[in-house]
């Protein structure tokens, strides 16, 4: 039994890490990762929502009629997202301004609904919350990684601190829109290469 919990907890960090293994939730992964800080903030906000929504949905899974389940899930998720939005405006105003409309858009992030439908609807609350937490943290790590790469090579800074010598010419391409697609595409390719080298089966479709 304890094994299931540990397996679930670690699955989100490598076996199912979004958005690389689980190709869901690409929009925020592309849009807000101009800097490491934005990526981390967005990732943590999503982690909060997916943990609690998984818990709530799993607790209610026997009450919600299956015909209206998607609508019910969306209402639960939207409520949680509104809470995050208000909390962020109160405590991290600057970050919430930078993330802009992408905070309310967590509602339509496929990861949240995907985990609700794929995991929370079939498993008990505690296990579902662990799954949500692990997927959420995995997502936060991925977004921070993408944000770090784009910020370091695109602006020469990391979390706002200069890390590369002044002689380094920042590749502005990476912080602009096309750079996001290319960075993520290359990271996916590296991940595929690593999986093939380890002889793992492809999970990603």
């Amino acid at each position: 039994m304890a094994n299931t919990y540990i397996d679930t907890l670690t699955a989100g960090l490598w076996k199912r890490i979004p958005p690389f293994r689980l190709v869901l939730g690409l929009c925020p992964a592309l849009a807000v990762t101009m800097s490491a800080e934005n990526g981390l903030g967005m990732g943590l906000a999503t982690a909060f929502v997916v943990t609690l929504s998984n818990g709530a949905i799993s607790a209610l899974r026997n009450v919600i009629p299956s015909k209206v389940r998607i609508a019910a899930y969306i209402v639960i998720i939207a409520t949680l997202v509104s809470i995050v939005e208000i909390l962020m405006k109160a405590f991290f105003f600057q970050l919430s301004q930078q993330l802009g409309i992408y905070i309310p858009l967590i509602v339509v992030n496929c990861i949240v609904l995907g985990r609700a439908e794929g995991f929370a609807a079939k498993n008990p609350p505690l296990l579902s919350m662990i799954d949500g937490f692990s997927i959420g943290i995995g997502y936060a790590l991925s977004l921070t990684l993408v944000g770090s790469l784009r910020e370091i090579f695109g602006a020469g800074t990391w979390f706002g601190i200069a890390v590369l010598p002044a002689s380094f010419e920042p590749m502005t391409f990476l912080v602009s829109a096309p750079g996001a697609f290319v960075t993520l595409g290359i990271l996916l390719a590296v991940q595929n290469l690593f999986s093939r080298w380890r002889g793992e089966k492809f999970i990603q479709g």
Partner: protein
Amino acid sequence: MDLFYLAISATFVNNILLAQYLGNCPFLGVSKKLETALGMAVAVVFVTVMAAIFTWAVFTFVLVPYNLEFLQTLSFILIIASLVQLVEIIIKKQSRMLYNALGVYLPLITTNCAVMGVALLVAKKEYNFLEMLVFSSTSAVGYGLALILFAGIRERLVISAVPKSLQGTSIALITAGIMALAFIGFQGMA
């Protein structure tokens, strides 16, 4: 004239897909074939405009007068979800042909962040009715344009030799990046 600039900017310069990164999941999902991309593009244009009109009305006439802006997220997603259901039912009853063409794409659109994104942008920028209409329709057309162009490229990608690790989503993302680079070229226009 301002409306004209707004239209050009929404379609090309601030293309909702390639510059604002909204609606990427269906973008990568349905762009494997030109035919499905076309169906999706039409469905997105239709739903986005409808959703923008309804959410705009609710936002201006209900949420703002009663100081309920914090309910924005919740009400918008509910409007969009029920609207999509309603459209599906009406189309099914009224036009079999249209239903066969769009039916499969409609449920997918609920979780398309482009629809919700346009609604949120309209509310954030406080557009009036006419501006909202122009902005939402041209944004959606821009989305459809990018989707159809990309599907065309992807159809050719299948028959070209791509390194094994880059196959699938990876090369699709890099291609989208190059396309986004091309769209940056429109920046001088508006």
